[in-house]
């Protein structure tokens, strides 16, 4: 909402200066976006001096001028004017300027092979006179010290731009803003002058608001103005329209716009002679069409509120008029409309047709239904004053009467909500100045809500009105109440926190990527999940919700590889979407690791990152987050985007159904498809939702401290076993020989090839044996050795290597 201080003062008697007004507006909730002069196309033209004019090397009639435009440097301009000479003061237009005469936008151009930066102007080009023989000669020596300054003085007044919240349609008119300011003590609202307008004759174009199942118009007021002379608006009106950032069109259109911005009362003027017999306000039928004032043809749906005549649709009520009945300079008789349209209907129609106009913006938020006559009178007076003509009686048709909103307000609610007290007297004064009708019934105030405030429907709205006008600075700052109702974080929130920092501490950079992704990449990672398209994506490559964290992570990994980084570790913790309903999402960590370990190391041999790097990271992170390493079970079934032979799933224990993590090399096909250039790419993922909270608290676990001081023994074994036999199985078999005595089993060598039969491998393990009751003697140890060998051989088909 834009307006000038001058305009405001048409409605407000105030001693406040501009800055005080600006501050007050902000204080009462009318946020000031800016307060500055409206920019003009003429601002770019500046006073300049030709330092040196020489002949153009390729054209005798042209001159090449060094021009001083203020500042340190001169610029070079090609000029055809005969009067261009050294020392001439003139007007310069830089590239980007729009020349008033032909509305051309200047650009840097080559003229006969020499680049010209802008132009020196003639009076005719600036529409100052018809003189076009030469460039302007600023003889007056007052210009000699103004080089570099604007040639045209900015006369435009500073404009206030308010950002009006959607609940305040009344402040979409200057008068409403003045009223708010007056309530806040910034002056006195001027009383509207009584109109002494004389009416002649009746409005004899019949108006009908049709009874419809859905009728978007409840009141239609109008009057006829006969014998007008439409013309350009006078300067004061043009200035007002320009201050709104709009272009003046003609007096009649400008007046209707002026009244709209003045009173928040949209109007529409029809050329009465173009109306076919009568006005019918009705709902449209599907397929009807009309050409609107924005020069677009609209095809309507059912139940849109239209103003029509016998020939068809004239315009969309409260949204936009049509060209068929539009006013022109030649218009002699006009029908002026001032109506009330229902916000819901306006919103529905304008959304459907995608039209946004000032009228629509206002009706959608709610125009004062009791302002029909006021609008007609104010506009008619101005039209008569500027364009002449005779005004008919006002004709107001309505199908519904306005119902007052009445609120019984208990002033205690104010203190209860805001924490401070305002005397009843002051409170009543504020409300009355805002236009409320206040009567007292014991402690309760009976309030009649002004018709221009559709946003006020209940007591809490009254509280807001009072505190807003009184000033938020009166609200106390109470010390925060530290009472706690429950722990800050629950188990999964803590887990999130632990795992996030745990993974980062393994050398991974955390990133945050969009929750949406490119369906083409998502396809590679979505497994059996359904794709979740976004109906209105921001771009075609962010068109689905991500089913996995990897599509974005891999996409950005590639970007960083392409930037020249070689060894990259990235991770993200966030949602992966499994369906399109609320809650169909899992919290997942996805991590990627590319490149080499010990690249260009002077002491270590460099190698590619591999599956066991990420296996370490994933297991260590899980352990740090409180999962017991001894319970963890690994298997080799993984999603299809992993290398089928070099990846594994991690289970919290052997009975668990869902893998809580996967790790391994990414499938070579994906590297190929996405054209990722790296020596090696390994990934892991952890699904937080599948992690189960331990039933034992840490304080219970710590108290179970046990250790043995008896001598421990270590024995090494090497077995020849089937190549596909999993080392984890072998370890389990050995452990199960005697869970008490066998403290640990460590695989220290795996070997295939020479001396090992085809399809077999050799696994060497180191077993630590220790009793908690005694020192084991040779005999005990021998027995265990034998048991280990026989168990392994019988359960796994392995043979001990001799």
């Amino acid at each position: 909402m834009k307006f000038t201080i001058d305009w405001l003062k048409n409605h407000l008697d105030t001693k406040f200066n501009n800055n005080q007004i600006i501050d007050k507006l902000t204080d009462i909730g009318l946020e000031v976006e800016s307060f500055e002069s409206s920019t003009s196309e003429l601002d770019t033209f500046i006073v300049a001096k030709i330092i040196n004019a020489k002949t153009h090397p390729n054209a005798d009639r042209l001159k090449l001028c060094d021009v001083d435009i203020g500042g340190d440097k001169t610029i070079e301009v090609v000029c055809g004017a005969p009067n261009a000479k050294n020392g001439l003061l003139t007007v310069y237009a830089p590239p980007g300027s729009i020349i008033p005469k032909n509305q051309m936008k200047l650009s840097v151009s080559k003229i006969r092979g020499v680049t010209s930066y802008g132009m020196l102007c003639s009076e005719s080009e600036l529409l100052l006179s018809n003189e076009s023989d030469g460039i302007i000669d600023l003889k007056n020596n007052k210009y000699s010290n103004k080089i570099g300054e604007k040639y045209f003085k900015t006369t435009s007044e500073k404009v206030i731009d308010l950002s009006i919240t959607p609940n305040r349609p009344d402040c979409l008119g200057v008068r409403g803003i003045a009223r708010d300011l007056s309530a806040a003590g910034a002056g006195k609202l001027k009383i509207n002058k009584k109109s002494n307008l004389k009416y002649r004759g009746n409005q004899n174009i019949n108006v009908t608001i049709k009874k419809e199942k859905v009728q978007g118009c409840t009141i239609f007021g109008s009057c006829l103005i006969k014998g007008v002379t439409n013309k350009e608006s006078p300067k004061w009106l043009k200035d007002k329209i320009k201050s709104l950032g709009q272009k003046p069109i003609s007096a009649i259109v400008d007046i209707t716009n002026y009244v709209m911005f003045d009173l928040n009362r949209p109007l529409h003027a029809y050329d009465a002679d173009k109306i076919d017999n009568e006005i019918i306000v009705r709902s449209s039928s599907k397929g009807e069409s009309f050409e609107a004032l924005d020069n677009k043809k609209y095809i309507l749906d059912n139940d849109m509120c239209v103003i029509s005549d016998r020939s068809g649709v004239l315009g969309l009520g409260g949204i936009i008029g049509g060209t068929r009945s539009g006013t022109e300079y030649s218009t002699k008789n006009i029908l002026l409309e001032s109506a009330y349209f229902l916000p819901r209907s306006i919103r529905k129609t304008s959304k459907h047709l995608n039209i946004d106009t000032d009228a629509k913006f206002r009706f959608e938020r709610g125009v004062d239904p009791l302002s029909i006559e006021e609008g007609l009178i104010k506009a008619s007076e101005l039209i008569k004053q500027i364009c002449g003509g005779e005004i008919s009686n006002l004709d107001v048709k309505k199908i519904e009467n306005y119902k007052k909103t009445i609120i019984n307000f208990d002033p205690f609610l104010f203190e209860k909500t805001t924490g401070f007290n305002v005397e009843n007297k002051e409170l009543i004064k504020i409300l009355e100045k805002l236009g409320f009708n206040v009567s007292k019934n014991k402690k309760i105030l009976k309030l009649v809500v002004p018709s221009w405030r559709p946003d006020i429907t209940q007591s809490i709205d009254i509280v807001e009105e009072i505190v807003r006008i009184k000033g938020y600075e009166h609200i106390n700052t109470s010390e925060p109440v530290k009472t706690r109702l429950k722990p800050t974080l629950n188990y999964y929130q803590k887990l999130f926190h632990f795992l996030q920092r745990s993974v980062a501490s393994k050398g991974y950079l955390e990133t945050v990527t969009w929750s949406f992704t490119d369906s083409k990449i998502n396809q590679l990672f979505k497994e059996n999940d359904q794709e979740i398209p976004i109906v209105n994506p921001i771009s075609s490559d962010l068109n689905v919700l991500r089913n996995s964290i990897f599509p974005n992570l891999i996409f950005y990994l590639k970007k960083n590889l392409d930037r020249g980084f070689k060894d990259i570790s990235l991770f993200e913790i966030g949602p992966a979407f499994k369906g399109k309903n609320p809650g169909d999402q899992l919290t997942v960590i996805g991590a990627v690791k590319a490149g080499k370990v010990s690249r260009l190391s002077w002491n270590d041999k460099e190698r590619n990152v591999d599956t066991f790097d990420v296996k370490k990271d994933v297991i260590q992170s899980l352990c740090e987050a409180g999962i017991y390493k001894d319970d963890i079970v690994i298997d080799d079934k993984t999603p299809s985007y992993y290398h089928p032979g070099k990846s594994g799933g991690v289970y919290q224990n052997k009975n668990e159904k869902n893998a809580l993590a996967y790790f391994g090399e990414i499938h070579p096909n994906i590297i190929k498809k996405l054209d990722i250039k790296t020596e090696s790419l390994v990934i892991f993922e952890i699904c937080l939702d599948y992690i189960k909270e331990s039933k034992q608290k840490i304080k219970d676990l710590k108290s179970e401290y046990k250790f043995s001081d008896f001598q421990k023994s270590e024995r090494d074994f090497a077995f020849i076993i089937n190549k596909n036999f999993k080392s984890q199985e072998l370890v389990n078999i050995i452990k199960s020989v005697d869970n008490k005595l066998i403290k640990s089993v460590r695989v220290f060598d795996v070997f295939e090839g020479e001396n090992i039969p085809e399809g077999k491998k050799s696994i060497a393990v180191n077993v630590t044996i220790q009793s908690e009751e005694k020192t084991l003697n040779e005999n005990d140890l021998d027995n265990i050795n034998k048991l280990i060998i026989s168990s392994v051989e019988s359960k796994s088909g392995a043979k001990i290597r001799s």
Partner: protein
Amino acid sequence: MSDIKKIKDDYIDKLNTENNIDKVNNIKSELFGKNGIISNEFKKLGSISVEERKELASDLNNIKDELQNKILTKIQEIETKEINLKLEKEKIDVTLPERDIEIGKIHPVSQVIDEISSIFSEIGFSVEEGPDVENEYNNFTALNTPDNHPARDMHDTFYLDNNKELLLRTHTSPVQVRTMLKGKPPFKIIAPGRTYRSDSDQTHAPMFHQVEGLHIDKNINMGHLKGCLNYFIKEFFEVDKIKMRFRPSHFPFTEPSAEVDIGYEIKNGKIVIGEGNKWLEILGCGMVHPNVLKNVNVNPSKYQGYAFGIGIDRLGMLKYGINDLRAFFETDYRWLSHFGFDPLDVPSNYRGLSR
């Protein structure tokens, strides 16, 4: 006797110049071996008179001690020399690079969320969450924003179906609705998380982060709201004083509503929070609208309280001098390394919010 003394002097001289450990050991056995010179002298003691023996034995013992000490120190001296020589040879260039350090980082958004959670934890708030995909009711209708409300235009919403029933939440406020529907008052929660609007330019990203706050109890008024936010802002920016301004505004789900500005100034091209006479809008808040409370089965005549919504990314940008919002989500390795935080740098009250 003088022979012995002479022998001693000779050997002392020898030992003084000797630098070979084997030769020193040879001298040791020459003197103290089974038939060593000194050993033999001791053997002779048996055959002389008691008086002579006393004197001689004492001399002999002194000579023995002196020689033995000399041998011992000589051996130590030579060994030390040899070790030093060996260590000297083993010297390495310790300025050569260490094995690669892999430094991971926490994203600034995560760090700021932890900072925020830590501050609110101090004053008794707990953390709630809600899904990213919401239904129309929780995101709008329950929050007093019916379908025909123009406030909906301020939320450019991503939809997942043509009926506009399922959407990506445009703010964290639906967590209020979920929290209150599943529990009984009082409520005292914050809800940080991802939010989405179909808006994308230099200052807007289609995804961003908000933290919602909600405190509902019997006597919570706007003074508490002011106090809570004042505390939070001061703690968050780690300044002693903060200039703060509450301005009336409008949100359908709060009444009265306010926007909060903090004072700032530009010093040497950098933004300084808390001082100065420029204002920066940082959050929206207000008293929860009675219609919202009714929608979630809380009796508005018994319970009331406040809610607020803060842009997390923006707070982080202000605190840590990050200029470009878009960069948060572009995963540039250089940016992440620079703006990321050490994983051990966990914001907490006792250790300080940031280091």
